[in-house]
């Protein structure tokens, strides 16, 4: 790991204890984010990408969820054992987060102004007047005109795209070192998605902020990521630089995912499709979790879980195909 690592997640496991059994939503996940870097966690629904983000923010609802193992180091501070007070000082201040549904993520009975100024009072201890000025500046920063009018309006008066900009303004209010964005454009139309992605890229450049982006959309990943973490069934199955992942994917799942997505101006007679379904996260067997759906499966894949291994500089994959012969047999 480089010296300027700001977030280091080590062997994180988050489980949900439900009436049907223990759901291993995040299962031994490790990765890191360094200063100014954009890391994307990509995967399909239920792969644990959002739970990973929520675990970093320590926003997992307990019960039923619980971080059962691992370490989350933010600037060498251990977030898992941090006190509630310390956590509160970090959230919204050094680490901030935006969510998938801008429509429901803002409080319907408070004005936009009230909601933007809250972290300013809480973390930056501004006076009322200063906070208002700052809020107006933030609204303008995220590309909304009529800032004074917006300051006094309620969430239902704005569109989804505008609300997501407001969420970004709130997230930026205390100059965070790390911005976690959980599917920030999934609920938005394509043309609005393009606006939000441009905005995020711009802001990130300007502030040398790190970003952890959670998404299911490979297109978005290719556009913004420096480094990509691919998750499947609660595990990291491959991680590497954006070029490694898109140009030289190693894991059969990553390869399949890239091939099954229809791409503009690349017509195929038939889409490649990965057969089968995502496994149930309750009774996972000690095998590669992709075993049932894999074209290249071997006998060892059904019997033991592959460890992550370095196949290239900074490119790791958890797949038996890349293990040396002698280990496999």
């Amino acid at each position: 790991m480089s010296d300027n690592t700001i977030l280091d997640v080590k062997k994180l496991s988050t489980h949900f204890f439900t009436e049907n059994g223990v759901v291993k939503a995040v299962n031994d996940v490790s990765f890191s984010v360094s200063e100014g870097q954009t890391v994307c966690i990509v995967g399909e629904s239920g792969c644990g990408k959002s739970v990973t983000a929520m675990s970093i923010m320590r926003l997992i609802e307990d019960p039923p969820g619980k971080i059962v193992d691992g370490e989350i180091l933010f600037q060498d501070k251990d977030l898992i054992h941090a006190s509630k007070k310390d956590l509160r000082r970090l959230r919204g201040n050094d680490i901030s987060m935006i969510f998938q549904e801008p429509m429901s993520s803002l409080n319907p009975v408070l004005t936009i102004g009230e909601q933007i100024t809250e972290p300013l009072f809480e973390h930056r201890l501004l006076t009322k007047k200063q906070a208002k000025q700052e809020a107006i500046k933030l609204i303008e920063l995220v590309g909304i005109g009529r800032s004074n009018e917006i300051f006094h309006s309620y969430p239902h008066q704005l569109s989804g795209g505008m609300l997501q900009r407001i969420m970004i303004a709130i997230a930026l209010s205390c100059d965070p070192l790390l911005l976690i964005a959980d599917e920030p454009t999934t609920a938005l139309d394509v043309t609005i998605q393009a606006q939000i992605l441009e905005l995020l890229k711009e802001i990130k450049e300007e502030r040398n902020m790190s970003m952890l982006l959670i998404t299911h959309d490979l297109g978005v990943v290719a556009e913004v990521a420096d480094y990509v973490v691919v998750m499947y069934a609660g595990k990291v199955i491959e991680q590497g630089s954006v070029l490694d992942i898109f140009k030289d994917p190693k894991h059969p799942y990553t390869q399949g995912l890239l091939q099954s997505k229809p791409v503009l101006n690349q017509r195929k007679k038939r889409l490649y499709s990965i057969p089968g379904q995502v496994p149930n996260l309750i009774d996972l067997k000690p095998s590669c979790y992709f075993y049932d759906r894999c074209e290249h499966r071997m006998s060892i894949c059904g019997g033991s879980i592959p460890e992550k291994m370095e196949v290239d500089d900074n490119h790791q994959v958890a797949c038996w195909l890349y293990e040396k012969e002698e280990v496999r047999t």
Partner: protein
Amino acid sequence: MEETTVQTEHMAKYRKSNLWKQVFRRLVKNKMAMTGLGFLIFIFVFCMIGPFFSPYANGGVDAININQPPSAEHWLGTDALGRDVLTRLMEAGRISLTVGLGAMVMSVFIGTLLGVLAGFYQGIVDQIIMRTADVLMTIPGLPLLFIMAAVMSEWKVPAENRLYIVMVMLSIVGWSGLARLVRSQILSLREREYMHATESLGLRDRRKLFVHLLPNIVPLLIVVGTLSVGGAILSESVLSYFGLGVVPPTASWGNMINAANSLIDFQNRPWLWIPPGVAIFLTVISINLLGDGLRDAIDPKMKSR
């Protein structure tokens, strides 16, 4: 969290049983609900079978042993006519439980019928039914019950048949709320895509109604029905206490408490009126616990605990 719900969806495919079995399994796990159910069974057995084992059944008047405090022979003492209070409590329970169940069945029937008609056919039918419900709901339940009770008192109904009249009254007051509930449920079900699908498949109304809509309101009816038995028992007790419901010599828990109206009985003979009150309390709390447990079991998302 979006992800956890997705996971439960994935888990779903491993539960190889129908929805009712799941409901049952969840219900059995709920301790409060099971305690309620246990108590209810006990009360039922106590009231329905109990009198057969009592030596004082069928209103045995005993002029020598009047107003006796609890003793080995009369566990809960005797009343002014020398009747055994424990036996009377059982007999009264039969009446009160019958009224509660009967009123529930009737109001669920009327409420469901009218609610379904209003929600399914809409238009003028809906208007008439719902406006009627509105009117009924402008008058609070208790005064309305009192008026009806007064009207019916004048009909000189024999005392042993009064309970049926009380049932009818309770269901007249009770149906409107239920009809509203059923109607709104039907309206929301109609917006589900599977109801649009029945339209696009060109299915007949009968099939839409009986195969798709009604089975989906049954869970609601079970919960509301269960809870309304409790409500009906409470209302009956109020009416009977004020002499407007079930009247002596037929015993009901409500009119047994009427003994408290006499100052001497009230102060010195608590065994006459406290046991029926406790019986009502236990019955209703058990019903409510069971109903609440059913609600949680049927719709875990609505779970309030």
